[in-house]
Structures are given as structure tokens and as C-alpha cells.
């Protein structure tokens, strides 16, 4: 059986997906990156290899996410794509008529506008915690509530309190103020969900025409409190697709398939065995010019397989093939 591998290396989670020729998801993994993308990719490959049926052949690999280049050189990717395109491709596969994609991940959030199947506009914030999953995570652990139950608790609220959402510093001090006044936790959590949605729509969604069908994906889509808050704010029905947390990886796998089938190429995938190799990373300052670029490099055993951070081609590695 032939299948495609998609890897999405994000700041918070690393996701792997194996998709067969027909588009069915054979296996999917959602792992925490924990600041160690190299180890996580290796662990992910090892774990997913065990979930696969015998005689399955990987005939294409795509990588996406902020660690896509790193993952790309490690596994030998055929396609290295940005996460916006990957998310759009995956969403329009599951919901072909989709016109708006809301995506909230660990450290960034995006809105993607599609019309007639193609992306016409997008916006993305970077590491502004007000409006991303890591802030929810942080608040959940402060309140001692598992993040998986966070959304359900919000649904129990009967009287949401207003929490400032523009900045996490404001939000947190507001939450503490409301908690000390004696507001029940579900109300505060629901208030936080509404604040996050308000911030998302005002910031990322500003000036964008949000039309149905609306798809909500990314790790935060598991949070029903946020989903309901979106539905209330937009007065629209919102679909959370199956595999919402690994959509980027699915998109990467689909793009790999598109590339290889259309171009009649064979894969560069190095095999699951790379999880047994040693990788290490290092960095140095280039003194070639006053820019003093910080060059990061990754070694596979003793060979340098990738370098980043240069503003000129001096340290580029010529990729074979």
C-alpha cells in the first residue's frame, strides 16, 4: 500500500500524519514540541512507524510549520510548504466549499479567506499570546484545571464576566480581580474565551469578510468554549473538522502527493530509520560582513545537512537533486 507522510512542526506541537492514496488518514500523532523539535520529530517517526500496517510504502513527504526547514532536511522532504497553504489545502479537502478558516494554534493564529476554492486573503499574528493556545494553557494550569476540560467548564457558565482581551497582562490581572471578587470559575473561563475570540476577530479578522462555511481548526479548536464563543460572536455555525489538530500535517501530506504525482518524481524520504541517527545542532557568528549573522546548523551524524540564519548565500548548502 502506498501512502504519504505529512509533518507539521509548530512552536508548541509537532504533528505527524500518514495518509493513503485515497485520502484516508491511516495514522495521526499530536506531540508536544517542548522546545526540542529534533528529538520530537525523531520520537514521532518512531511512534508512527509502529502504528502502520506492514508493507506500507511512503512515497512522499511534506513538511510545514515554523520548523518546516529543519524537519525537511532531517527526513528528506519532497515539499516544504508554509502553514497557511497547508491549512487551506487540508480544510478544503474536508469541507470543499469552505470560505473562511479560523486557525488557532499554540503560538500563532491565522485567518484564511477562500473563495471558489482558492485562498484570496489571509492574516497571521506572531507570538502575541492574547489569542493563542499557550495563554489558555497557562491560565488552565494556574487554575489547576486540565486544558482538556477547560472548554467544557466554560459551557457551564450562566453569567459570563467580562475579561479584557487585548493583552495577556490585562487579561490575567482582570481574571485575578474577578476571581478575588468571588465570581465562579466557569464564568471567568467563559469570559476568557469570549475575550480571546473578541481579540482574534478585532486583530486578525479585522477587515476580513467572514462568510460561511466557517471551519475552525488548530489545537484550540478542541476547546468547545472557544467554539461556542465564536458562534455567538459571528452568529454563524462553525465546523470543527475531524483531525482538526493535525490539519497542517494533512495539508503537507496532500501537497507532497500533489507534487510527486503531478511531476512524476520519486520521493527523497530517508526512511523511518533516521529516528535512530544522532542529530545535533550548533551555531556560530559569521564574521564575513558587519551583519554578523547568527548561523545555526544541524548535523546528521558528522555531516552538516542544513544551515539557517544567513542573509547572503555564503553558507547555503547545495541540495542534491
Amino acid at each position, binding site marked *: 500500500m502506498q501512502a504519504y507522510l505529512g509533518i507539521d512542526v509548530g512552536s508548541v506541537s509537532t504533528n505527524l500524519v500518514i495518509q493513503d492514496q485515497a485520502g484516508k488518514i491511516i495514522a495521526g500523532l499530536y506531540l508536544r514540541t517542548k522546545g526540542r523539535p529534533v528529538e520530537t520529530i525523531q520520537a514521532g517517526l518512531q511512534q508512527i512507524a509502529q502504528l502502520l500496517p506492514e508493507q506500507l510504502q511512503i512515497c512522499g513527504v511534506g513538511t510545514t510549520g515554523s520548523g518546516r526547514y529543519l524537519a525537511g532536511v532531517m527526513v528528506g522532504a519532497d515539499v516544504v510548504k508554509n502553514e*497557511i497553504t497547508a491549512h487551506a489545502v487540508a480544510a*478544503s479537502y474536508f469541507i470543499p466549499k469552505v470560505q473562511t478558516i479560523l486557525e488557532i494554534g499554540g503560538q500563532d493564529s491565522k485567518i484564511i479567506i477562500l473563495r*471558489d476554492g*482558492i485562498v484570496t486573503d489571509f492574516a*497571521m499574528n506572531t507570538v502575541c499570546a492574547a489569542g493563542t493556545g499557550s495563554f489558555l494553557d497557562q491560565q488552565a494550569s494556574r487554575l489547576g484545571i486540565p486544558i482538556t476540560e477547560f472548554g467544557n467548564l466554560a459551557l457551564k457558565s450562566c453569567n459570563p464576566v467580562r475579561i479584557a482581551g487585548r493583552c495577556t497582562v490585562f487579561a490575567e490581572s482582570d481574571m485575578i480581580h474577578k476571581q478575588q471578587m468571588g465570581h465562579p470559575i466557569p464564568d471567568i473561563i467563559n469570559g476568557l474565551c469570549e475575550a480571546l475570540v473578541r481579540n482574534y476577530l478585532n486583530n486578525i479578522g479585522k*477587515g476580513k469578510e467572514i462568510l460561511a462555511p466557517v471551519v475552525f481548526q488548530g489545537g484550540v479548536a478542541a476547546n468547545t468554549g472557544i467554539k461556542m464563543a465564536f458562534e455567538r460572536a459571528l452568529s454563524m455555525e462553525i465546523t470543527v473538522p475531524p483531525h482538526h489538530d493535525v490539519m497542517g500535517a494533512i495539508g503537507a501530506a496532500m501537497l507532497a*502527493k500533489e507534487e510527486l504525482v503531478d511531476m512524476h518524481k520519486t520521493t527523497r524520504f530517508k526512511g523511518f530509520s533516521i529516528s535512530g541517527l544522532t542529530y545535533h545542532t550548533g551555531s556560530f557568528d559569521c564574521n564575513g560582513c*558587519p*551583519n554578523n549573522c547568527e548561523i545555526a546548523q544541524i548535523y546528521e551524524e558528522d555531516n552538516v545537512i542544513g544551515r539557517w540564519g544567513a542573509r547572503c548565500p555564503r553558507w547555503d548548502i547545495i541540495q542534491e537533486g
Partner: protein
Amino acid sequence: MRKVTFPHMGESYRAFKMLLNDLGNEVILPPRPSLKTLNLGVQFTPEFACFPLKVLMGTYLETIEKGANTLVTTGGVGPCRAGLYSELHKKILHDLGHPIEMIVFEPPRLYPFNFIRNVHKLNPGRLSIKAIINCIKKGWRKLQALDNAEKLTHIIRPRELKKGTTTQKYKQVLEWIDNANTTSDIIEAEAAALEELHKIPQDHGRLDVKVGIVGEIYVLLEPTANLEIEETLGNLGVEVERSMFLTGWARDNTWKETVEGMTVKDAAHPYLPELIGGHGRDSIGNTVLYAKRKFDGIIQLAPFTCIPEIVARTILPAVSKDYNIPVLTFFLDEQTGKAGMNTRLEAFVDLMKRKKLKKQHQADILLPSGAII
């Protein structure tokens, strides 16, 4: 003796160096802005000020270190704080114990005496008025030659067969123009430079995607301030046209190369009938003009906290909708991490390419083959 320096804006320093030398000044060349420039600039400027103030401050401090004692810069009219930056720079530098002299050129049409006085200061050789005019003409010609070479790289880079050839060749031909010191030499060097660039092996069959770049002048003209966005786009296979070049900006209202012969001001009028300072109105007007010329997308570049560009940014979605052209905005600051910009640029290029392919083939190419529709 004056040791003169000026802000670094792309390759224009080559022309200013020649002009100031011709007038008999010793010139301290501003270095290309680097991490050091940025660190110095950020350390000695108010945190809330915009990026150009910081980069220029860094540049001034670097050139003062090399012995510069006279800074030549431009002022400005209209409600944009950059017009006051020369004063602020001067105050900060004096406070730091650098007794530099600041020569500020205001728009000569509005302040002719300021212009004459400043030229007089920068004319230690006491050249005649006629000789000065000739020097300015020659400097202008060099500036044009530099702009023309740069414009050509924007067209050739996306089509080059071997990645990096254009950038490499461009560096080489810049030196030819740099070394030309008479008008006829400049014209000859320019012709040779353009010819050399044309010789780069190209693939003309590639999908042709064109992007117009609009925004604030400093971040448009100084590649280190915009993380070399034009080069990055060129490497992604995109032809760029920048709305502003020093030569074009200086001529300002003689905008004749547009299809409909309308000025940027007229084009912006339905959306923004007022001058709001900086280049906010130009950003809107140029977006309209590019859209009318059937460009595939617009990229707006703005320094973080730049009010004129923020105003333009909030109006651009309306232009984008009316003309059905995607617009992507980048706010630039001291952040040097390029990954975020690359992600957005790649996605933007994908967006434009797929839109264009769809128009060409009328086929649903977003869905990979075999996808269930």
C-alpha cells in the same frame, strides 16, 4: 574642515559620495546598516519612535566614530514626525557630547533660501553656480543609473536560471557605475551594466507574477530595513515593482509612466482626499495604479507605529475589495528574524500563483488530484 556624511539608503550613497566630493568635501561613507547600527540606534533613541529614527541614529553614531562632523539629511513638511527627526537627532547627538553640525535640506520649492544656504555650506571649493549645477546634474545622472540597474534586477531575478546570479552580477556592475565620474562615463557604465544584467541566463516561460511594493520611503529604499524583501520575492519567482525610487520621489509629481497618466494623488483621491503626512496617500494611490495595471498583488511596508501607514493600512482593504487585488502589510521594526516574513511571503506568492493559474486554466487546481469534491 567638514567631514560630511549622510543617511544610508540602498545604493544611493554612491551618487551622494560623488556629488559631495565634487563640491570639495571630505566624505565619510555611511556603512550598510548592520546589527551594530541597530544596537546603537535602539540604545540612544526613544523606544516609541519609529524604525527609521533608530537606524539613522545608529548610522550617525557609526560615522561619527569614523570622524564625521557634519550630517546632511532631509527635513520634511506635512504631519509626519520624520520631518522633525533631524532636530531630534541633533539634540540627542549633542547631549551625547558630539558637537556635530546638521545640514537639513527642506523641499527647495517651498524653502529656496534654505537650499541655497545649505549648498553654500557644502561648497568649500567655492565653485561657481554653473559648476554646482553641473555637479548636481551629474550626481542626478548617477542616481538614475543606479536606479535603472536596480529596476532591471527586479525583472531579471525571478527569471534567472541559477539562483543568486542576479544578486552577484548586480554587485559587480554597481562598482562599474560607482567608478564612473564623468557624465559620459556614467552613461557608458550604465549601458554596460544593463547589458551585463541582460546576459544572465533566464527562463521566460515561468509563471509571471507581479507585485507592487508601496509604503514608507526609508523602509522601501533601504534593503536592510526591509530584510531584503525584494531579493526574497525575486528568489520566489516574483517580479517586483517598487513605487518609490529616489529619482522618482524627487521628481514627485511628474508621474508619467502610468497607463492612464493619472497621478498617485488623483488615484488616491476617492479613498483619501487629504495629505496625512509621510507616504500614506502614496501607498493608497500606488495600490490603485498597480491594480489598474493588472498587478497580481500589493505589499505595503511600514515602520512599526507609523501613523500615516496605519491610516493607509485601514483604507487598503477597501481598495483591495474594489479592485480585487490582495494586499499584504508588513510592519517593520528592529526584529531581524526573517522566518515570519518568509512564511507570509511564501503564502502570499502561493495565493497569487494559484489565483493566476486558475484564471489561466479555469481549473480547480487547489484541490490535489484525487481529492473528493
